[in-house]
């Protein structure tokens, strides 16, 4: 799994010379413009909390079977089971969270996703959810493959590491970004495989995976994903299918 990137020369000074003339300046200007435009913008506190769950419950057909990988306290599955008559199954590593799932009547298997989900048969679920989990995994690529092996559809959400505030934080402070959506110092963050919207799209196109629909959280407000959301999407949610 440690294949070098084909375009690794980009990270060397020699590689930087190969960047199209003016591209970096153009990006920097876009980011500066975004900063100016958004400086005065007041985003009400708490906006966008659990925004994925609104969208997921719209995306999941009534009566579907749903596997939630890294289901936490079972909040999403309980809602889906109640509102959408879903047959739910969660997987969660934390014993305290497992007890919370049990309180809610959400079936949950206490397990480390790092050990895989080989126990689960092919296409056993209509939908498999990886909500804010992918970037915490030791083996995200394998888990994405597994998601589409055991599920007909996958739903993946994650914080976009290319969001302009993250980029600015890194460029301006020379420290690993600590933002509202990534609120941890590097040494205590569970996010060990941070990725960007573009990374996810690259994975999809190189793996024969189709994006069925996509959403972005922009300024605390969820909306449909657009082609140029690289810098403004704080978080991304995509619904994916094989082929």
């Amino acid at each position, binding site marked *: 799994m440690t294949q070098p990137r084909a375009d690794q020369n980009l990270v060397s000074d020699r590689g930087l010379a190969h960047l199209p003339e003016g591209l970096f300046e153009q990006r920097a200007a876009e980011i500066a413009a975004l900063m100016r435009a958004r400086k005065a913008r007041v985003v009400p506190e708490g906006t966008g909390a659990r925004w994925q769950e609104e969208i997921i419950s719209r995306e999941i057909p009534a009566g579907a*079977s749903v596997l939630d990988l890294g289901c936490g306290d079972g909040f999403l599955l309980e809602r889906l089971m109640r509102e959408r008559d879903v*047959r*739910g*199954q969660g997987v969660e590593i934390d*014993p305290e969270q*497992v*007890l919370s*799932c*049990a*309180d*809610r*009547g959400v*079936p*949950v*298997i*206490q*397990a480390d996703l790092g050990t895989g989900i080989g*126990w*689960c*048969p092919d296409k*056993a679920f209509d939908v498999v959810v990886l909500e804010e989990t992918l970037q915490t995994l030791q083996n995200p690529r394998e888990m994405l493959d597994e998601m589409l092996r055991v599920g007909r559809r996958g739903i993946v959400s994650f914080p976009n590491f290319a969001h302009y505030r993250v980029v600015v934080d890194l460029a301006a402070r020379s420290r690993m970004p600590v933002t509202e959506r990534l609120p941890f110092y590097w040494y205590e963050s569970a996010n060990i495989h941070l990725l960007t919207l573009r990374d996810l799209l690259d994975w999809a196109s190189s793996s024969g995976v189709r994006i069925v629909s996509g959403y972005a959280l922009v300024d605390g407000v969820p909306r449909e994903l657009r082609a140029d959301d690289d810098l403004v999407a704080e978080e991304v949610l995509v619904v994916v299918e094989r082929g």
Partner: protein
Amino acid sequence: MELELGGRIGPVDVEYETYGTLSPRKDNVVFVAHALSGDAHVAGWDEETERNGRAWRKRKPGWWDAIVGPGKAIDTHRYFVICPNVLGSCYGTTGPSSTDPATGKPYGLAFPMVTVGDWVKLHARLLDALGVARVAAVVGGSLGGQQALEMALAFPDRVERAVVLAAAARLSTQGLAFNAVGRYCILNDPNFRGGDYYGPDSGPDTGLAAARMLAHITYLSDEGMHEKFGRRLQSAGEQRAGFGIEFAVESYLDYQGRAFVERFDANSYLYITRAMDYYDAAATWGGGSLIEACRRVRARALVVTFDSDWLYTPGDCKDLALALARTGVGVTFANIPSRFGHDSFLVETQKVGRLLRGFLTH
């Protein structure tokens, strides 16, 4: 009744206890299965100890009193709890100490070999007799957990929920080995006399006590024993350099052995540990494949293990949970951090209670 390993037995008595009230629709039954040394007396204080001669029950309420009762996790205001003694038991259900109608004397080793499958078939007949078509849940720990699993496998349409605590689809090799040593102690006690010891002379008390002491070690964990006893000496004075009871842990085991002899029959111990050895859900129902076997199950399942349990290990319990999860009925598997070893299912009542409450009410 026909038996799984051949032969028949009859007539069979079943002693059972119930708690709560059976609903008019008979849909609120929680069937509790007891473990190796347990009995039907699940909760509360036995008021008939004088009449039934079970004086040891004066010391303690039922074995799962913290879980079963009014307002408790298995709430007897809501559920009708049934718990029978297993076939081969020494607590009222027909066993080796019961009278063999063929001879007019106790069965002893003439008692036929019985299995977990036989127990569950008998339990189903008890349910028939009570007019209960389907249980809301079958719940058990250890050997009781295997009965819960077996009921879900043998009678898939009669079980809505199955709760398996500290138990796997079969006993490990190490577990088989411990049971073998326990039986060796009993079988080689000079007072065992081929199992025919029910006369006025004393029975294989030393062997039974040794078997219990050994088994008791497997119910605890090293960490738990260290914490409870350490290397503490029994008497505050100095070490006596003899072979009496020196350490606190020796005194504890000695007490466990004596208390057990007072309340348990050695032949029952032989038969029940053998049933425990033989139980193998994958072999019986799946041609050796646990996944195949679990395809039969229609019940929603709760499987709970404890991280310090080395008799039914977390790994073996998880294998069962994952095989059940493949059926898609919805499975909860929890691995509770605890230092109480296999006994955790009796001791960690707060967490077990919380899991049970959530599982039963949804």
